[in-house]
C-alpha cells in the first residue's frame, strides 16, 4: 500500500502533515510493521519545546524500543491521548488514528522525502 501522497517523510520513518502552524506527526506503516505489535507509546507533555532532530518520545513493541524524532523545532501542542488506552491504534491506522503528536511550529519542513521517494527507498508498492 503506497504511503499517503500529501505527507512528507523522514529517514527515521516519521511522517508529517502541515496544517497552518501545526505539524501533525506519526510513524509510517513500514516502521510499524518492522516494530511489530506496539505495546506502549511514551509521549511528551503538552507545552514541551523540542529541537529539530531532537527526541520527543519512545515507541515500544513486543520486539523493540524505538525513539521518536521531531522533524523540525517547535512546541508540543497536543498528543494523541487515545494511544494511552490503546497503543495498537498505531498498528491499525498509523497514518490517521494512530498519529502521535501535533507540533506548533513556524518552521517550514524542507529536505524531507515525498511519499513516492519514501516508498521507493523502502520498496513499498
Amino acid at each position: 500500500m503506497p504511503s499517503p501522497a500529501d505527507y512528507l517523510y523522514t529517514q527515521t520513518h516519521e511522517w508529517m502533515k502541515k496544517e497552518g502552524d501545526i505539524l501533525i506527526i506519526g510513524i509510517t506503516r513500514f516502521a510499524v510493521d518492522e516494530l511489530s505489535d506496539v505495546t506502549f507509546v511514551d509521549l511528551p507533555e503538552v507545552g514541551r519545546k523540542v529541537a529539530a532532530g531532537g527526541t520527543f518520545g519512545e515507541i515500544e513493541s513486543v520486539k523493540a524500543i524505538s525513539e521518536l524524532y521531531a522533524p523540525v523545532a517547535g512546541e508540543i501542542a497536543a498528543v494523541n491521548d487515545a494511544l494511552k488506552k490503546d497503543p495498537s491504534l498505531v498498528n491499525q491506522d498509523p497514518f490517521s488514528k494512530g498519529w502521535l503528536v501535533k507540533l506548533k511550529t513556524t518552521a517550514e519542513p524542507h529536505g524531507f522525502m515525498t511519499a513516492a521517494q519514501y516508498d521507493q527507498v523502502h520498496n513499498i508498492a
Partner: protein
Amino acid sequence: MTESTVPLLKTCFYDFHIRQGAKMVDFGGWSMPLSYRGIIAEHEQTRKAGSVFDVSHMGRLHFTGPDALRFLQHICTRDLSKAVVGQSLYSLICKTDGGVLDDVIVSRFDKHWLMVCNAANRLKLLDWFKTNSAGFNYQIKDETMQTAMIAIQGPNVIALLDNLLPDPVSTLKRYHFLTQSYLIAKFTVFRSGYTGEDGVEIICGTTIAQMALNMLFKQGRDISSAPLQPAGLAARDTLRMEAAMPLYGHELHENIDPISAGLQWAVADEKPFIGSVALAEIRRRGLETVLVGLAVDGPRIARQGMTIWAGDKEVGTVTSGTSSPTLGKVIAMAFVQSVCAVPGTALEIDLRGNRVNATVVKLPFYKLAKADT
C-alpha cells in the same frame, strides 16, 4: 554491524511462509517466520483455538549402536534408562563445570534414540559429542536437513487431529509419541510443545511435509469452525514466557547451571554424567541466585539484561520479559539473589533509567487447567 557471510538455512516450509506474507528473521542461522498477522493475534489464536509453528530449524539427531544409551547417559543430566519405548524426556547437556550447553528432548524409539536440540546449538553439540566419544561404540546421524518438524498447539488441536490422522492422538500421554503411517508416508507424533497449551509436535520427511501442511490447514477448515492458523517465532516466545519455559540464550547458557535455573527435576542424582560432580557440589553448597517470575508494574517491557534492585542493592538481572497478552500485564523472568526469591518480595527494575516496581510471583504465569490424562 557484522554481516554474516554464511547464507541462511531455509526449512522446507520457506515458500509457504513467504506466500503467507510472513516477516522473516535470522534465528540460529535459519531464515524463520517471526510473525504472519501480528504477534498478539497469533498468541491469542494459540490460546483460544490452535496454531501451527514451523520448528524445522531445531536439530534432530539420531543415535544408534550398542552404546547409544550408555553414551546418552554420559552426556545427559536426565536418567534416560527410565524411558520406555515411545517416551520422551526433557534433559540438559552440561559442561564439566555444570554450565548448560543446551536443553534437549530425548526420545526412545524401538531401535534408536532421537535428540531434538536448539537450532543455534546443533553444530556445537555435534562437536561436543565427538570430543567426548572415546570408549563409546555408537553412531550419530544428523537428520535435521532430511526431516521437517511442526508444532501444532492449542485447545482445539487434539480433537482436530483425532479426526484427521489414522491413529488417535488423544490417547497419547504427555511426553509420549507414536509413529503413524498415512498411505506411504510415515510420521511421528509427539504429545509435547513449548506454548503451555496441549498439542503435538510432528516430525516427517521433507518430501511429504508441504503436502501434509496444506492438508492440515485445508482439512482443518473443513471439519472445524475455528481452523488452525500459522504462528511465528515471536508468538512462540511470548507463549513460552507465560508458561515460564526456559529459552536457551536467556534463562539457560554456558554460565548458568540447571539447578539455579529451577531445573533440578531434570538432573539425575544417582548416575554419573558430564557435570554431575559440579552439580552435586552446587546442590550441597546451596544457591546464590535463582530464577524467579516477576509481575512488573506499568506498561513498559522489562527486557533481557536489565538490572534488578532491592533498595540500593543490585540483586539480579532480567532474562526475558514481555507484555503478556493473556494476563494483560508485563511479566518477566530473572535471576535474583536467593534471599529475594520469595513470592511477594517487592523489587525494582531499572527500565532504561527509570525504576519500576516488580513483585516476585510463582511460576508459571500461565498454566492450563489439569487435564484428565
